[in-house]
């Protein structure tokens, strides 16, 4: 009798255990939430990479190439491009989307690379990070010469299977929103002609 209950119990244990394993497993591998430490260390890497480029003292064109590599390596450039294109993206063909994303990545590297010059002699330090829903928000403080320190926040996620940042806020100003507005205006100027926009993106920024 005792043996039977024991067996039953153990069977139930196994079943429960199995059920639990089944229930957990879909969350376990891909969506195991990114830890705040992973988020912070990702941003540390981004900051180190940016600082390295700035310190290199290369000519601007070369620096911008390096910034483009940083965006490619550490950010979800495809998402940035797709968000910036907004609803217009819905009527874009797959090849238009690809072409846009490719030119967009050069465009943000040029646009933000030029602004990073202001960071020469300054530093960006990770201050805190917290989990919000499925992503990690990493708050850094920018210390620039002759300026009160200000906030730069990154949104980091591993939704793609890789740890990447997909938005950046400078004193509350969202890169995603800013670029969606700008790309929308560029498209309006070209009377909604996506191909013209894609072509002009090569030089923009």
């Amino acid at each position, binding site marked *: 009798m005792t043996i039977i209950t024991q067996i039953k119990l153990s069977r139930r244990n196994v079943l429960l255990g199995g059920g639990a394993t089944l229930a957990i497993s879909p969350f376990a591998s891909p969506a195991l939430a990114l830890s705040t430490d992973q988020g912070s260390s990702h941003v540390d890497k981004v900051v180190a990479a940016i600082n390295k480029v700035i310190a290199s003292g290369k000519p601007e064109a070369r620096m911008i190439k390096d910034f483009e590599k940083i965006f490619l390596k550490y950010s979800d450039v495809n*998402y940035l491009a*797709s*968000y910036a294109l907004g609803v217009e993206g819905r009527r874009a063909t797959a090849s238009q989307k690809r072409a846009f994303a490719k030119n967009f990545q050069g465009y943000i590297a040029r*646009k933000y690379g*030029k*602004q990073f*010059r*202001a960071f020469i002699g300054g530093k960006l330090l990770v201050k805190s990070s917290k989990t*919000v*829903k*499925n*992503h990690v928000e990493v708050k850094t403080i920018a210390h620039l010469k*002759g300026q*009160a*320190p200000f*906030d730069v926040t990154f*949104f980091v*996620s591993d*939704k*793609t299977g890789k740890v990447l940042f*997909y*938005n950046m*806020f400078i*004193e*509350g*100003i*969202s890169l*995603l*929103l*800013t670029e969606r*507005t*700008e790309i*929308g*205006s*560029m498209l*309006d*100027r070209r009377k909604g002609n996506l191909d013209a926009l894609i072509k002009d993106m090569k030089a923009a920024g």
Partner: protein
Amino acid sequence: MLVLKSIQNLKARSVLAVVMLVFLQACTAPAPKAINDPHEASNRRTHEANRKVDTALIRPAAGAYGSVLPAPVRQGVGNFASNLNLPGVIVNNLLQLNIDGAVKNSWRFVINTTIGLGGVFDPSSSIELYEDSSDFGETLHVWGVGEGEYVELPFIGPSTQRDTVGMVVDVFTNPLTFGAPSPEKFMGPVAKGLSKLGDRYTYSSTVDAILYDSADSYAQARLLYLQSRRFQLGQEQTNEDQGDDGYDDYYAD
């Protein structure tokens, strides 16, 4: 600032109307929607005029100012102006019952005015005593006034109805400018004007990128102003505004 004064005189009546309007709206101050800009057409005309003023006047003046005066001198002018502005900020800290901010700013004012030789130097920042900046627009916000409509003001640029009222009131919140005898009371505004010119020079590549390189500088300036102002006031933006929910949805399929 002198220009500002004359505009204020000219616009005194309409400003009064705005004051009343904002206070009426205050009773039901809603959380800020994405963008509330019902007078976009006239705002855009003002924006074009402002851009022309920048091209013809402010940008070249800032260029001259920046190339004539070396960086440490410009920094000194900027320090001096913000130090003179501090008593007004402290008044606003107090009106918001932000005692911590008021104490910090008071120490800052005392240290920079004495050790910092009248505010030309900024020793407070080297001991990490930074300004807890504020203005009457923020005071109104703390009192429950909504931001109202977006406005682009002549010569000044992006603002909201609430912040415009705040700016006018701030002429009177600073005892150093409002209460001072005649020549001294212009010191603050003049220093502020020069400091703004210095800023235009220091951040010229950023400002130029917005005003002249952007496909729609009006829309960019509006978005940048509203986002940074709301951030400054600690107003949480919705996740949708931050492109957050979109990220999960993007990879949902």
